């Protein structure tokens, strides 16, 4: 077991009112899990992800990663952001190397590792390019490369495709699945937040459905569809339908 989310609840204060965003979330993440957390807007799924990663503390409950309470800078957990979050004054390679430098890795090794993951996500040729010159899709590739470069055990992604156009998004998802299939590639497990059900069925082997606020776990579904998955497949559509019926 990699991550255990135990009795997690989160309450916010807004204009003097207490708002319960998450209500007693419980589940475990194991090796080889590709989990998509889906739910309507405002159900708290992004908040939940931030708590899992350690960027926020739950009001009640705990998140354990490999037996220990999660801390934000745990090097075994890496995050990919919806709006890419690249440093504009660094090139693609420098952005990736920064994450490695933070781990205390020496310059030469940083270079090698960064180079390896740049190739892995298909960014070769773009090493010395600045984020402002990149399209959204390429920026997110850098986000992936950076997350993978620290060789995390758990990869967390917050709506990583929602800022991209449909075709680029398609391309990136397929590339992600290719990387996921590679045995020698990190991570061991993925948790992704999305509001797009089709996307979740396309990518995940496990879907956790959150209810409307306050977010509760409505269902924890194992997706039994062989890969590669095809949107046009009627079986695919049946799974999408099933998820929708659980949400609505």
């Amino acid at each position, binding site marked *: 077991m990699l991550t255990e989310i135990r009795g997690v609840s989160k309450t916010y204060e807004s204009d003097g009112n207490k708002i319960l965003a998450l209500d007693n979330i419980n589940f475990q993440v194991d090796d080889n899990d590709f989990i998509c957390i889906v739910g309507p807007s405002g159900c708290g799924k992004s908040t939940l992800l931030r708590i899992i990663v350690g960027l926020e503390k739950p009001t009640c409950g705990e998140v354990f990663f490999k037996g220990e309470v999660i801390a934000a800078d745990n090097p075994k957990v890496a995050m990919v952001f919806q709006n890419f979050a690249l440093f504009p004054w660094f090139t693609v390679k420098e952005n990736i190397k920064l994450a490695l430098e933070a781990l205390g890795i020496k310059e030469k090794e940083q270079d090698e590792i960064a180079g390896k993951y740049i190739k892995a996500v298909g960014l070769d*040729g773009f090493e010395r390019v600045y984020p402002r010159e990149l399209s959204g899709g390429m920026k997110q590739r850098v986000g992936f490369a950076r997350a993978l470069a620290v060789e995390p055990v758990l990869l967390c992604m917050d709506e990583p495709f929602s800022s991209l156009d449909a*075709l680029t998004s398609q391309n990136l998802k397929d590339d992600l699945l290719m990387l996921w299939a590679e045995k020698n590639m990190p991570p061991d497990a993925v948790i992704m937040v999305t509001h797009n059900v089709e996307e979740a069925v396309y990518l995940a082997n496990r879907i956790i459905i959150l209810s409307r606020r306050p977010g509760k776990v409505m269902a924890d579904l194992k997706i039994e569809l062989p890969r590669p998955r095809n949107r046009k497949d009627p079986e695919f559509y049946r799974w999408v339908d099933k998820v929708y019926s659980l949400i609505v």
Partner: protein
Amino acid sequence: MIFPKVTISEIIGLLEAVNDAGGVEDAARLAGDFDLELDEILPSIDGAELLGFVEVKNGNIELTADAKMFLELGIRDRKKIIRDKVKGVELIKELRNRLLESDEQKMKKGDALKFINNNISTNDSESYFRIIINWTRHAGLIGYNSDAEEICLMAEK
């Protein structure tokens, strides 16, 4: 000449989408599936055609044999195919020749923009520049140094 304003990623996305439909798909349905307008899908189709990945007949988009083989490959191997395909695009061939002929195999951005203006009738050479550089970077053929504002040939690996 008309050059499609589309990135390589979008083109590959299109190929994957057509592949999902079995290798042939009606353009209108494809647009509908991805919730795309005409303006958004046409450039991708044009781009895919230019690279020899699709053939368009009667409103149907059909994957070529090259495309089907391409889609079977992994990310690294796909890069090689992209390189070969992009090398064959007329405009890019021209640009590479110009670079090969120049002194340090470099060209100032201003000259590149002029080159684009001469070959594509447009008043927005800047956007075309960005697209072309996107293609050539993907292909590992031509790079662009934004600090020095010049494009240069990339070394063959």
